[in-house]
């Protein structure tokens, strides 16, 4: 258990952010449920937030982003809430009009 006595660095945080980003991206690409795609977007935004906060942390680098990183992360959280509200409204509309939430059957949404 030698790694537990070593302090973690910026790379570990970036790896966690990258993993959550990729999970979200693959989730968006493979899910057929509209709400599953929305969950993928949430995972992507979280991965980005972890990266922002890792670069903002005074623990890892002397010339960190500081407060700017925290502010950007907060704005990302607020915008994610707004995005979720609109996307959910669109999904509900789609469900009401087409009686399905399978995006493979959403070809009628073209213009």
């Amino acid at each position, binding site marked *: 258990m030698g790694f*537990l*006595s*070593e*302090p*973690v*660095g*910026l*790379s570990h*945080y*970036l*790896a*966690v952010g990258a*993993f*959550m980003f*990729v999970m*979200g991206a*693959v*989730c968006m*690409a*493979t*899910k*057929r*449920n*509209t*709400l*599953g795609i*929305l*969950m993928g977007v*949430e*995972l992507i935004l*979280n991965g980005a*937030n*972890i990266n922002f*906060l*890792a670069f*903002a*942390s005074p*623990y*890892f680098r002397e010339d960190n982003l*500081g*407060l700017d990183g*925290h*502010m950007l*992360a*907060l*704005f990302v*959280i*607020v915008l*994610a*809430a*707004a995005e979720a*509200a*609109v996307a*959910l*409204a669109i*999904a*509900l509309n789609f*469900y*009401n009009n087409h009686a*399905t939430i399978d995006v493979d059957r959403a070809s009628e949404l073209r213009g």
Partner: protein
Amino acid sequence: MNQVASGLVTSQWNIATLGLLAASDGAINWHTLFFFIFALTACGFALAVLVSSHVVRMAFFLIVSLSAASGVMFTSGAHFVGTMQLLIYVGGTVVLLIFGVMLTAQEAFITLKTKAGDWVLGILVGGTLLALLVQVAFLDPTWHSTDYQQRLAAQHEAVTEELRQELLAGRDRSELSPETLQKLADLESEIASGFPENVGRIGLALVGVRADTTDESVGLAGYLLPFEIVSVHLVVVLVGAAYLARAKRRRTDLIE
């Protein structure tokens, strides 16, 4: 008298340093341990969101993953953002998503299986992207670890030593230089609780005042304008969402 005073002072200050110094001689580093607990939970449940095809379970896994991600944020020193992640994301956004799941959860849509070809393609592209990103994250050897804890412990040790010298030189405890005592208090507060003053600075930055920097070139570059824009954006978006998602009984009545 002086011996007694210095004994008191050193024993009191050594308790604070123990937590830092213990990390250097092979014992468990608690920051690392908690980082790995939160990181593995976040990553594992993110993977579960991807693998599961049951939409209600996906929503639950997402809640656990996002909560653990807020733990990762806490371990990076971003206490306020981590709290907001729990309040807004886990308490608001995901609840909204779960309402969406409940409103659309009909027998046929609870489990929509992904086609095998999509899986192969997604895992191929995603795996390549993940390998690339992780490699880039570990590219810089100075990012692998941090000497922050050791630096803090060394500073604390230096200040304590300075005070000890003053005591041994015959000064009374009330005559110690106030700057050094303040420095020691600042260091101990940083060791014990990180940067709690960031919360107030975030609030000030949102109204356009930067309290965290004395850099002249930054000037009044606070976040007042982005804050206003995002507020109006949120109002417009929520009104629009309510309009989009409303029941459309009246319109169908008119058509009939």
